[in-house]
């Protein structure tokens, strides 16, 4: 009986407290301004502590703030790492797929010679490199010079048995056909000197900074990317300036292709073909049997 009375009293207390609280809440809803003022006054110490925690340069709040900042940075970096790992995987898959497709098409990987750069601009005229491999190692004039796997930077212009000179694509007067990836156009590229080459593109072609520039005659021939565009509306053409992504001073190793890329003019090719035909015909003339005519003369086949 006593326990029941105690229980009932407890219940009554609970409901009394709940009722008073509800009454205060209702009063607060009727006069919110009063309760807000009271609450703001009551919260002042907490607000001050909070302000100290957020803005103070004391050791404890600074430590806690730094910790929070570092935690968010770690989270951000972890996310970036995950994305980067996925990108690397995608890149590896694409390289493998590219190799497989190239094998299916019968394209074989070109053999290359690795060479160290033994002299560069400052010691040599600008846009010229000296490498420590020559004709003894299979380097020939006109062979393309690469940085890394696929970035072509120039051609061999002079080769001795022990060393060679490579002329960079950016040499003044150097001309080549180039393919601009973003704009999807083939244009002529000319060296400007000082490590810069230039492409001329008609107005209206969407040329943009960062577009990759390929040399189709050299496989695989990425040269660099468009780093600056000169576009004046009064000019019929716009100019894209290209510089290799790697600085000349930081080039230490290069690889040299074994297949010469020297372009011949149609006249040169025609003259060479004519010479070869003449040589083969004269060889036939020398070997062909002579026929004796009735009047005792001799006649050769032409």
């Amino acid at each position, binding site marked *: 009986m006593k326990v029941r009375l105690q229980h009932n009293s407890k219940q009554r207390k609970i409901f009394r407290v709940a009722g008073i609280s509800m009454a205060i809440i209702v009063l607060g809803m009727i006069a919110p301004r009063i309760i807000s003022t*009271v609450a703001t006054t009551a919260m002042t110490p*907490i607000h001050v502590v909070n302000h100290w925690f957020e803005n103070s340069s004391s050791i404890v709040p600074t430590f806690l703030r730094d910790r929070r900042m570092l935690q968010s940075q770690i989270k951000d970096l972890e996310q970036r790492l995950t994305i980067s790992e996925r990108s690397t995987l995608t890149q590896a898959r694409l390289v493998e797929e590219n190799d497989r497709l190239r094998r299916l098409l019968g394209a074989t990987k070109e053999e290359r010679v690795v060479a160290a750069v033994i002299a560069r601009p400052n010691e040599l005229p600008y846009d010229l490199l000296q490498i420590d491999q020559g004709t003894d190692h299979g380097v020939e004039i006109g062979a393309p010079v690469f940085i890394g796997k696929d970035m072509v930077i120039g051609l061999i212009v002079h080769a001795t048995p022990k060393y060679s000179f490579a002329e960079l694509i950016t040499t003044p007067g150097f001309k080549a056909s180039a393919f601009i990836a973003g704009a999807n156009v083939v244009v002529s590229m000319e060296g400007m000197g000082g490590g810069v080459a230039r492409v001329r593109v008609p107005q209206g072609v969407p040329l943009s900074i960062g577009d990759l520039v390929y040399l189709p005659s050299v496989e695989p021939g990425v040269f660099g990317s468009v780093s600056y565009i000169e576009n004046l509306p009064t000019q019929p053409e716009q100019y894209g300036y290209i510089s290799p992504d790697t600085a000349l001073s930081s080039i230490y190793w290069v690889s040299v292709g074994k297949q010469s890329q020297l372009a011949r003019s149609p006249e040169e090719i025609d003259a060479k073909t004519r010479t070869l035909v003449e040589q083969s015909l004269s060889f036939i003339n020398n070997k062909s049997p002579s026929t004796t005519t009735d009047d005792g003369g001799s006649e050769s086949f032409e």
Partner: protein
Amino acid sequence: MNTFLAVLLYSGIGFSIMHNWLLFAGLCISIFSIRHGAIMLIPLAIVLDGYYGNYYSLPYVSLLAVVWYIVIEQIRPRIFDLDMIRS
């Protein structure tokens, strides 16, 4: 010591709600309610609602605190009874 812990927990509840650390706030509220009862949470909730201006719309923290008080006061005696049986 007990009072000190109670004050610490009580401050922790207010501070964590203000910083929106809801998991920590939930943990502190549970411990405080079981050890010291939930009646003291009602004034805190009323003050918080007033501070954030919830009385202009709906003082949901205060209402939640009242409901929480009723629930906890129903549960607490049973938890203590179980403790007594165990000991």
